[in-house]
Every structure is written in C-alpha cells, then in structure tokens.
C-alpha cells in the first residue's frame, strides 16, 4: 500500500444484533477518488466512522495512510479531513470563524490558515456569506461551509460522507470540480453517495454496498460493462433486484 492509501480487511461492525458492516474488504489507492455507493442504511457512514476512529469495529482492521486506526488514531488524525454526513458547525460563529476554528484545532500556522480559508471560500462560492453567522445559512450553504471546515487542514486523505446532499445543481457541480481538483493535488478522496451520477462522473472506482456487504468493486465503466448496464443504477438493480432509491 502506498503512503496515502487505505486498506480495509474483513471489517465487521455489529450494533447489538444488527450487522451494519459485514466482512468488508477493500483498498483505496493513494491519489484515488473512491466512492461507496449504496442505499440508505447500507452501512456507508458506519464504514467511514470506523475508518476515522469515531466508532470501534467489532472485528477486522482498517489501516489509513499506513496507520492502524485502532491504535494509531492520533497519527491518522494528522493526515485526514472529514466531512460528516450531518454538518456540525457553530451557529453563533460566522462561516469564516467556523473554518478558522477548525484550522486552529489542526494547529495550522496563522498566515497559511488565512490564505487557505480565502482560497477555499472562493472555491465554494462563500466569500460574501462567510461574514454572516452560520446559524442563518441555508441548507446548501451549510453543506458548503462544512466541506471547507473538513478540508481546511489540506489533508492528504479526505473522507466525505454524502458531500453534495442538499446542494442545488450548480453547487453540486462546483463541489465535484472541487473534489476533482483535490485529486490533481494528489489527495486521496473517499466519499459516500447515493447519487448515481456523482459516483459515475467523479469516482475512479466505486464500491457498491448494500446491507453492510460489498457487492461489487471496480471502475464505473468496468462495472457497467460487466453487468451489461447503461448506468450504475442498472448495475445495482441487476445485482440486488432493487433500485438504489425511489
């Protein structure tokens, strides 16, 4: 495994009787955009939460950037940026203050922090909104500021849990461009989504996950070819007999 890759082996997570993640194994290469595609409750967030050390697995291993999350979580946290599915932020801080707060928690030098904040706010189109208190933001603005908060530390590996939910088409496309730019900078990106289009146009490789189990893993093109499908939705239907979402 290369420096900024991820290796997950036989990952299992039980919540009491419920198996949320079932014997999951996959690798993410350094510099790759990797997508976990699956319907609600598939186990995407649980997988991300284990990989970032928020949850402890029942068994199996997850090695992030060369460090086992189980005993080297503090090392992993210096490498990663995480955008949670529920965008947590301080409503009484402005957008910019929220971002800079997290930059400070990452111990970023002041000058670099300011420069990077400006740059990221510009990229997500929040330059003007950034001076307002985040509690007054629209849903889409919250998602965008949350993304900036996650990436402020210029992480080598980015975990993005449903990064474009609740965004309008324009913001979604801007966010995709933004994620593609991360790739050109050599970052590893692992994102979850239930948007077919997002997985197809953004991800180098996609893992299709349902009820905690990884059903298929390949490039979108190869998956479609293998199942004789015109898009990933059809791939999912062919494998499971169900639609990803109604």
């Amino acid at each position, binding site marked *: 495994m290369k420096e900024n890759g991820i290796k997950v082996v036989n990952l299992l997570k039980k919540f009491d009787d419920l198996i949320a993640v079932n014997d999951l194994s996959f690798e993410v290469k350094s510099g790759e955009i990797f997508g976990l595609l699956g319907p609600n409750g598939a186990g995407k967030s649980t997988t991300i939460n284990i990989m*970032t*050390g*928020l949850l402890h697995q029942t068994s199996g291993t997850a090695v992030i950037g060369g460090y086992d999350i189980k005993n080297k979580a*503090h090392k992993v*946290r*210096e490498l*990663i940026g*995480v955008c*949670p599915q*529920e965008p*947590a*932020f*301080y409503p*009484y*801080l402005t957008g910019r*203050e929220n971002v*800079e*707060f*997290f930059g*400070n*928690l*990452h*111990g970023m030098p002041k000058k670099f922090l300011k420069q990077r904040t400006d740059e990221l706010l510009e990229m997500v189109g929040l330059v003007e909104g950034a001076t307002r*208190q985040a509690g007054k933001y629209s849903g889409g603005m919250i998602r965008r500021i949350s993304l900036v*908060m996650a990436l402020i*530390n210029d992480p080598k590996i980015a975990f993005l849990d449903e990064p474009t939910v609740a965004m309008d088409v324009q913001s979604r496309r801007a966010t995709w461009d933004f994620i593609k730019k991360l790739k050109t900078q050599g970052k590893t990106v692992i994102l979850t989504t239930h948007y077919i289009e997002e997985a197809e146009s953004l991800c180098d490789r996609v893992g299709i996950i349902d009820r905690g189990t990884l059903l298929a893993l390949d490039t979108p093109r190869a998956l479609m070819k293998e199942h004789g499908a015109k898009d990933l939705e059809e791939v999912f239907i062919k494998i499971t007999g169900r639609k990803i979402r109604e």
Partner: protein
Amino acid sequence: MVKKMKIQRINAIVKKEMKKLTRVPATLFMALLFPLVLTGAFGLAFGGGNIAVDTTYTIGIIDLDNSAWSNLFIGNLSASNVISNQFYESNDTAQADLAQGKVDAVIIIPDKFGASIDSYWLNPLNASTWENTTINLYVDLGSLIVSNALPPLIQQILLTTLYGEQALSISQPVTIGNLSGVQASHNTQFDIMAPGMFAFAAIFLVLIVAEGFTEERTTGILRRIQLTPTTPAEVITGSTIAHMITGILQTAIVFFAAGFMGFNIGTDAIRILFAFILVSLLVLCNVGFGLITASLAKSLGSATGISFIFILPQMFFGTFVPITSDITKLVPSYYVTETLTSIFLRDAALTSEVVLYNFVIMIGYCVVVIIGGIVLFAKFGREK
C-alpha cells in the same frame, strides 16, 4: 497517551466560548445580565430594610475582675434568656472567634469593675469619689440584628446589676464604651446578603457548562473536534478557562453592582483579590459539576434538569438564604459565602483560622469535583 497541550487549540476554544457568551442572548443573559439584575433588584428591595428576629446570642466574656460584682453581672447576662455566655482567657482568642462568627459579641469586664461599683455604693451622691471604668463591647459587624440589638440589651443588664430589678436611669459609675466600628450598625439586610450573591452567580455556571457541552455533543460538533488532533484535555481546558473568565466577569459585575447599591467592599486590595480567588474556586467547582452533568445527561432537557440538582442545594444552603443547619456544610457555596461574610462584614483577618480553614476546604472540594468531572466527561461525556 500523554501529549503536550497546544496553546493554539486552547486559545481557539476560549475565543469560541467568549464569542458564544457575547453573541448568544440566552447565554449572555444567564451569565452576565442575570447577576446584574439580581444584585440590582435585591439592592433595591433590601438595601434600606430592617429586620427583627428573636434568637439567642452567644457572648464571649473576658472577666479581668473576677469579683462578686462581675460574677453577678455575668449571672444576670446568663439569666436573660436571649444570651448565652462563653468564657475566654485572652482577648485575642475571643476576637478571633468574633471575627469568624463563632460568637456574636465580646465583653471585656475591666479589672476595676467591682472596685468601681463599690466606690459608687460608698458614696452614691458624690460622683467625684467614684472610680470610673469602661466595659469594652465588641459586636459582630456582619449581623444587623446583633449590632443593633445587643448594646442596649447589655446596657439594661448592667443597670439591673447595679441597682437591682428596679433600675433607674440615674448616672452610673460604669458605662459601655464606644462600639468599635460603629458604622456596622448601618448594615442593611442587603449588606448581609451580598456575600451570598457573589456565590449565587457562580452557581449558575453549572447550567451554562452542562448545556454547552450537551449541545455540542448532540449537534455532533464534539465528534467533529474529535476528528482533529485535539485531545479531550485541550477541549476541557479551553472551556474551563473560558468559564473562569465568565465567572470572574460575573463576580466583578456583582461587586460593582453591590457597591453601587451601597455594599461596602472596602479598599483593601488584598482582601478583594482573595475574594476573587475564593469565588474562582467556586467557579471551578461548578464547571466540574457542569462536566458531571453533561456526562450524565442524554439530552439538552435532561442536562437542564440535572443541573438543578447541583444548583438548588448550593443556592439554598450556601448563599443568602439564612439556614442554620450542618447540611449547609455539604455545599461548596457555603464556604465561600461564609468566608466572604467573615472578611467583609466581620472584618476577619485573611489569616484567621476560619478563613484559612474554609479556603483549604474549598481547594479540596474543587480538586475532587473538577477531576471527577474531567474523568467522567472524558469517559462518558463525549459520546452517547
């Protein structure tokens, strides 16, 4: 894993909390406006009032005379059913107990007391032959009742001693000397309540801390912080520093508001500093209670509810509510209120036994509660 705490992180957390204080109206009200309004309202309500309560007063007696007359006087003091006597050998110990509120007043019967009365009875009509003496009376300056009610009472008992039951208002050979610190008789009920108000404001930090942390947990921001290299120690330290600042601001507000409403805090900088340190310990203690509450609470609502388990006893047993029971000694605010009363109203020295004793108890209390709070919170408080 022991890791060095990073100032930059702690600083960011402190700043964030201070912004919350100034920007969130509910927090601003709870932390700063509430103490101001409370002090102002109490000052208006009780600033001029007078109170009369029937109690027993304990009087420290130093009998330097030890004559039949002095024994009669002491006997008469005991016979009045509102006074109980306690005897001292030296003035110093008696004064120390007075300063610490153990006795309500101290009477020094001079060595010429008996001789003086004898000289009077030898020639009651010729004042020039009397041997005049003065009884020194010191009263608890912290109590309005004592400083107002005791001197005339003792005067009356003195008359009874001299002339028997049908004491007349004729000139006497023995008089009671000037009360030391007579301004104490101007103490209003508000003056007596003021020390409790300093403690009162700090108590409500439980609510602010508990709700703050519970909210941060339920909104997921604590998890988000957990995803950065920030340690729990840094989160708690930052938050504690911020709440110490809030607590000191509160105390300053109550100080100035109480001063404005007529409470005399004096000019002794060391005393004022000591009072601030003492209240800061109470603040720390209540931050600890807040952490414990946040660790136990599952939701914002239960955080509020559990907070009051810490707030109410501290309020009733340790501020300006006059309860005399040993149960008061269970709450930290009691030690602060009691000590501040000693310092500001009874004029106790900072080095006096009770002050030091309370101070040490507060430090111990604080250490236990804050460590308990941190351990509980680090273990159970961040995830539910």
